[in-house]
């Protein structure tokens, strides 16, 4: 299990649990302003969910989301970079210095439901 000295987020604030392959170089990223550690080779989704309990807010008012299919089919794991680019977290690979935002930067979509 990776301990994260720089993060104030405790173990209850991560969703995924690492079971093996933890002996990899660390990669530092920023999630919603917090500096956290991930491991080289992590998908962006795994990097975020080992430091947070969600990836994004649903635009339709039903709460937080943390992905669903992990194979690029459901599109439930979209996150944004600080400069507004959209990334599919399950098929992106984490990179040192990434700034990730879990709230969609532009105005939320209209609630069509």
């Amino acid at each position, binding site marked *: 299990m990776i301990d994260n000295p720089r993060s104030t987020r405790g173990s209850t604030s991560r969703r995924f649990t690492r*079971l093996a392959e*933890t002996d990899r170089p660390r990669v530092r990223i920023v999630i919603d302003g917090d500096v956290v550690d991930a491991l080289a080779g992590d998908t962006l989704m795994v990097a975020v969910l080992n430091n947070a*309990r969600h990836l994004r807010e649903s635009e*339709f008012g*039903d709460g937080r989301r943390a992905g669903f*299919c*992990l*194979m690029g089919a*459901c599109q*439930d794991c979209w996150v944004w970079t600080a400069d507004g680019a959209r990334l599919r977290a399950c098929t992106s690979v984490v990179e040192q210095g990434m700034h990730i935002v879990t709230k969609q930067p532009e105005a939320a979509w209209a609630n069509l439901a």
Partner: protein
Amino acid sequence: MGQPRVIVIGAGPAGVRCAQTLVEAGLRPIVVDENRRDGGQIYRRQPDTFTRPYAKLYGTEAERAQALHASFDVLRARVDYMPETLAWNISEGNLHVTNNGRTRALPYDALVICSGATDRLMPVKGWHYAGTYSLGASQIALKAQACSIGRQVVFMGTGPLLYLVASQYVKAGANVAAVLDTSPLMRRVAALPKLLARPAVLRNGLALVSYLKRAGVQVLTGVTPVEITGSPENGVQGVVVRDRRGNERSFECDAVGMGYHLRPETQLADLARCAFRFDHETRQWLPEVGEDGRTSVPGVYLAGDGMKVLGADAAEIGGRLAALAVLKDFRFRVADEELRRLREEQAKMDSFRRGLAQAFPWPVEQAAALPDDAIVCRCEAITAGELRRTVCEMGAREANRAKALCRVGMGRCQGRYCGHAGAEVIAHAAGVPVEQVGRLRGQAPVKPLAIATYGEVE
């Protein structure tokens, strides 16, 4: 005439064996694959920096996985390999692909679609809470990233993947709170004659169940899912089911892996205008295929789980068969003995497939029983009640009509995860057989593309 231009979509077991067979005949196919690496979902490779051995990653299938990867390593120089490339439309003899924001149209003489499958999902109240994942997702988290989807995991649904993923989690040291199977045990007994078509696979399956029980995991069969409990802020907190005696049972957990077997990815076949037929055994629409994966459209072939969910071993056979069909149709010499042998093997695979469909049925009755406030469409949070109103008050009795009116199937997954259940909800509300509801039409692009995607000027 020069060599036919052949494109293989997908680099899983079907795509790799297809490409290999084409290369052996002297062709140089294009292999388009959405993933970063070959192997597909089932034999997905872990990143290079990971060190777990094949036996740990793929268990009883380690040799097959290693053989497939080794084959592709050799093939790479002999095919035009396009990884991380989305095939998103087919029109007028061109396959439209996008890689890294650039889009191209690739002309083809023969197209072999080996698009694989995704989990087949039946909604349950609360399945939109963060921490609910598909079974396939649960497996990918472990296989490709050495992670569990939570600290305490419940697996729910039905099908062989339910037991496979649960036992892989236990072996890897994850905390599995329960395995909840909607299929009653008696169905498995009744399906035995068909399942005996592949005795070794059946034995492996039974071993998984007894492994789980020996490991002290609660395994319940014949359950009815009631609810995934939790909150919009914190996600999953538990699962409630009714056991086979009708008693309510609750399990605490922070993650749920769920799925009801698999559904083929057929959007590209649809865009190629292949004919479909309704498969009563699995209650879904499948592309109509003739011998060896030929579709109703000349020049378009299917293989692997994207044609019909037969599993990885059958996908390897299907990939070879489709390649031989291409070769035959372009007047290459094909060894009839080889064809016969492959077809015989494939017939056993199909018998086993039908056994699985019987043993682990799609739980139709759950769609009818879904409470009005349960979300059917996770993409846009549209409830069963809204869908039923569309049917009962607005008269939409057809899947695409209902989609137009209430947006179930319109969201960013394009109906992959709500389509089958949505059709059952519509059928029940309208009082018609589900085949009358039809199927959601495939739409290009088959996955969201950025507006900024641009065409390559050639």
